[in-house]
């Protein structure tokens, strides 16, 4: 019954997003595409940080890896669908290879290592000739499959929304499975998980690669959507933005990653639109962008440890319990228990029942 409710919500959100993609105008769709791609990466980050307990400040590199894979394959004459197929595969393979040494690291060491990975990747793509160097990769053809070429922004909105939906389904199914429970055990105590027979190192690597493949898929769609890639499209700030969104939404939950990326992305875009209004200095959008990300990140880390979703659901439950009348009270208290529990991701054991 629990699963049914969740599936219904998911179906509702998905159909609402598809309807939005069908109705919005082109300028809104441009925001929509980028939002869907960002949310795709954020889901991966959220899984990685919330479940494998690993901070990554380098997922922009995997996004870039996916984008360049798709871009290079397409400009070399491969079918574009093959490029999009290989984008997540190459990103995951890259993560799998660098993850073997990097995931030995913990905490701030891993944060630094992933940041370093992003910087090394940037200097690599600005040096290599196959990636077009500093000038960038130009003339990437439009995405086409089965004789249909996607040219309009709307078609890319559908494509990115489809990609996001695929990622949501994969992430949810993995979280609800046996490996998902093992991951949650791992995130609270690696030693305890290992002693219960969870192959800790292997699972950490697998989540790292999986989250990289999400980023790679989003990057691949980005390449076809933009038609042009340059090292400047993937600044270090990009990697940080994903962490901000995941932290704001609440780590480890697909709904958290989705709501975090939607709220942060729309807030930032709304403000940057205000900042480009008449009379504002040219640097205003950048200043606002940085300030908003900074304030959101600090607030989320210090005051919303469970993220927006947990905060909203506990307080919603509390409000309902307070204002619930008569027969409703019983239901409301149950709601507090049920909805309040995601606030404490450490409590692995009691949640088993609801997932099986």
């Amino acid at each position: 019954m629990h699963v049914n409710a969740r599936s219904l919500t998911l179906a509702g959100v998905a159909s609402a997003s598809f309807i939005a993609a069908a109705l919005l105008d082109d300028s809104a769709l441009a925001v929509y595409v980028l939002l869907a791609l960002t949310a795709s990466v954020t889901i991966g980050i959220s899984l990685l940080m919330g479940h494998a307990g690993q901070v990554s400040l380098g997922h922009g590199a995997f996004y870039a890896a996916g984008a360049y894979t798709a871009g290079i394959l397409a400009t070399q004459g491969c079918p574009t669908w093959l490029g999009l197929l290989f984008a997540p595969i190459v990103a995951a393979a890259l993560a799998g290879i660098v993850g073997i040494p990097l995931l030995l690291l913990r905490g701030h060491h891993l944060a630094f290592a992933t940041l370093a990975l992003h910087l090394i990747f940037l200097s690599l793509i600005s040096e290599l000739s196959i990636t077009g160097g500093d000038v960038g990769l130009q003339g990437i053809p439009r995405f086409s499959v089965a004789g249909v070429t996607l040219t309009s922004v709307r078609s890319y909105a559908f494509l990115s929304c489809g990609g996001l939906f695929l990622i949501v389904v994969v992430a949810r199914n993995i979280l609800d499975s046996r490996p998902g429970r093992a991951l949650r055990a791992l995130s609270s105590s690696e030693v305890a998980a290992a002693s219960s027979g969870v192959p800790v190192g292997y699972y950490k690597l697998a989540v790292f690669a999986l989250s990289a493949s999400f980023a790679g898929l989003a990057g691949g769609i980005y390449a076809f959507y933009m038609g042009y890639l340059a090292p400047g499209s993937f600044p270090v700030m990009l990697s940080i933005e994903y962490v901000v969104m995941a932290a704001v939404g609440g780590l480890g939950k697909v709904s958290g990653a989705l709501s975090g990326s939607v709220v942060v992305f729309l807030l930032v875009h709304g403000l940057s639109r205000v900042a480009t209004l008449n009379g504002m200095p040219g640097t205003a959008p950048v200043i606002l962008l940085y300030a908003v990300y900074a304030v959101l990140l600090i607030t989320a880390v210090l005051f919303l440890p469970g993220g927006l979703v947990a905060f909203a659901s506990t307080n919603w439950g509390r409000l309902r319990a307070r204002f619930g009348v008569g027969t409703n009270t019983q239901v409301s208290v149950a709601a507090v228990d049920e909805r309040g529990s995601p606030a404490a991701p450490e409590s692995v054991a009691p949640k088993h029942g609801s997932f099986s």
Partner: protein
Amino acid sequence: MSAFLSYLIHGVCVGCGFALIASGLIIIYRVTRVVNLAQGMFAVVAGFTATSLLGAGLPHVISELTAILAAAAVGLLTGCVAIGKRGTHPQASLIATLGVGVFGYAVEILTWGDQPRSFSGLTGAFEVVGVHVSTQYVLITVVTLLVFGALELFFEGTYAGKALTACASNPYAAALQGIGVMRMGLFGFALGGALGGVAGVLLTPLQPISYDSDVLLFVNGFASAILAGLTRPVFALAGGVALGVAESMVAGYSKASYQSSLALILTLGILVVQATRRQALHTVEE
């Protein structure tokens, strides 16, 4: 040969700058267990402040000292955000310092714009063993040595220094002795800010800085700190100089754009080796 020597001297001077940033990182880390991702920002703020003050007509030494004080104040503010809320986990503080660093971007662009800035340091040059060495390089080395000497005296010879060391080795025991661990942490942040500021005012004349220079400054500082094992600030001098020389050699004999990648790969290698050794010893960290 003279090319080699000039790369070497350039490397030592740049490495001194890295060491200053590294020492700030180490002091903050030792006292609070927080890796301060905003460390590069302190240097950038000091560099910008000095540029503005000099532009306003203030004399040299006063401008630089004021800039260093400003960086110390920024360091203190960073500390308030990162550890001011009691019970904040070091990992959360790390992300909070990242937030402060990003906020620094906003303030810097607002105050100084997004274009690189610089000011002229000492002009003139020496001839040392047939190599042209500019006076600014000599200044950097001398100031760095003085700062590290002062740090050593401070940690070994003063009550505040001892208290900082006590907080670093065992915060709980230090608190039992009546040492305010939180206050010491904030003091550590202010000191770290000042050290970053020294690096900023010394390095800005060599190469114009912009608001996003902080990433490379942080990366190099952290790399030096790792080479020094994140323990004593004085070791960071060795780490920073080693890194500076290595980068200078790569830039000189190979390609300048490879130098930061080299520093990063080197650091990653060291981190991974340390981690494997730690695993082999079965000593679980923290």
